[in-house]
């Protein structure tokens, strides 16, 4: 765990989140800008089918109701194709969209400084984007480490408190 809580951030708070459009299923796509007006959580991750109990997406799936209390939309992104995503989402009962950063491979991950070209998959990164499309918080997890959801919830809390002021 880094001593400086900002040491792992990727973009400074207030950076405009790059827009993108990616496949979410058979013939369907999701664009970041369609969520303007609500906070968005982007979770880049290396690959579908990692072990269940320590799995980041399984945890986020459980915490979804708390994200929803903040009106926040969670989106998962990896370089897996849509058929892989669909099978994975069904098997793990995931209740949020998984987007395929498949062709051109890793293009959106690269846009978010979340791609490892040497191995060909996304890093484990998190972005909380505010309702205006600005990045409020970002986090790069150390290799092999599940970040948990507390950082996301704290960022969503700050958004809410900021809006109340």
């Amino acid at each position, binding site marked *: 765990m880094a001593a400086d809580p900002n040491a792992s951030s990727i973009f400074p708070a207030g950076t405009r989140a790059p827009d993108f459009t990616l496949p979410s299923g058979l013939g369907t796509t999701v664009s970041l800008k369609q969520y303007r007006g609500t906070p968005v959580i982007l979770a880049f991750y290396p690959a579908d089918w990692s072990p269940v*109990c320590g799995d980041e997406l399984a*945890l986020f799936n459980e915490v979804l109701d708390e994200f929803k209390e903040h009106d926040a939309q969670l989106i998962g992104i990896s370089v897996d194709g849509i058929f892989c995503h669909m099978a994975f989402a069904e098997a793990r009962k995931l209740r949020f969209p998984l987007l395929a950063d498949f062709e051109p491979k890793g293009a959106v991950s690269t846009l978010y400084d979340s791609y490892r070209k040497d191995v060909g998959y996304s890093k484990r990164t998190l972005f909380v984007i505010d309702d205006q499309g600005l990045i409020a918080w970002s986090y790069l997890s150390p290799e092999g480490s599940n970040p*948990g*959801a*507390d950082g996301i919830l704290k960022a969503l809390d700050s958004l809410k408190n900021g809006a109340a002021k």
Partner: protein
Amino acid sequence: MSDLTPPVSSADHAEGPPDAPVTLVEYGDFQCPHCGHAFPIVHALQKAMGNRMRFVFRHFPLTQAHPDAEPAAEMAEAAGTKGKFWPMHTMLFTHQNALDLDHLAGYAGKLGLDAAWAGDAVAKHEFLDKVKRDFKSGVRSGVNGTPTFFINGMRYDGAYEYEAMLQAVEAAAAD
């Protein structure tokens, strides 16, 4: 991102003296095989540490992955109202493959509780609030899977093996 929130209080299920120099907290799921693996290890730690360690268990059921985990946690809470939280905790971790409602009620009966009452309480989710409170506190504390352990309020990121954990709790006791 790894401090226990809220700290251990009288609302928790605890074994061992409140003034023990080490408090080990586990966020666990009764249907999780890794928690099942950790169960005898925690027991061995308790034996080795004696009165120098207090052990606290909080619920962290991964309901989508483990459909029986939440009812099992509710049964532990139901048993807890009759002073049987820890015997039920042992019962559940030693019967991880049979945690459907009929079996849960049966375990209550085996522990001398009214099986019909306990089964009904779980079916009606009478103790779900406590389970959900534990889960939320885990999320806020940086629990990132099960089991997650905290030693004196700090998340333990080492292996769930006896030697590694004993070293960690001994170090905390010596602080």
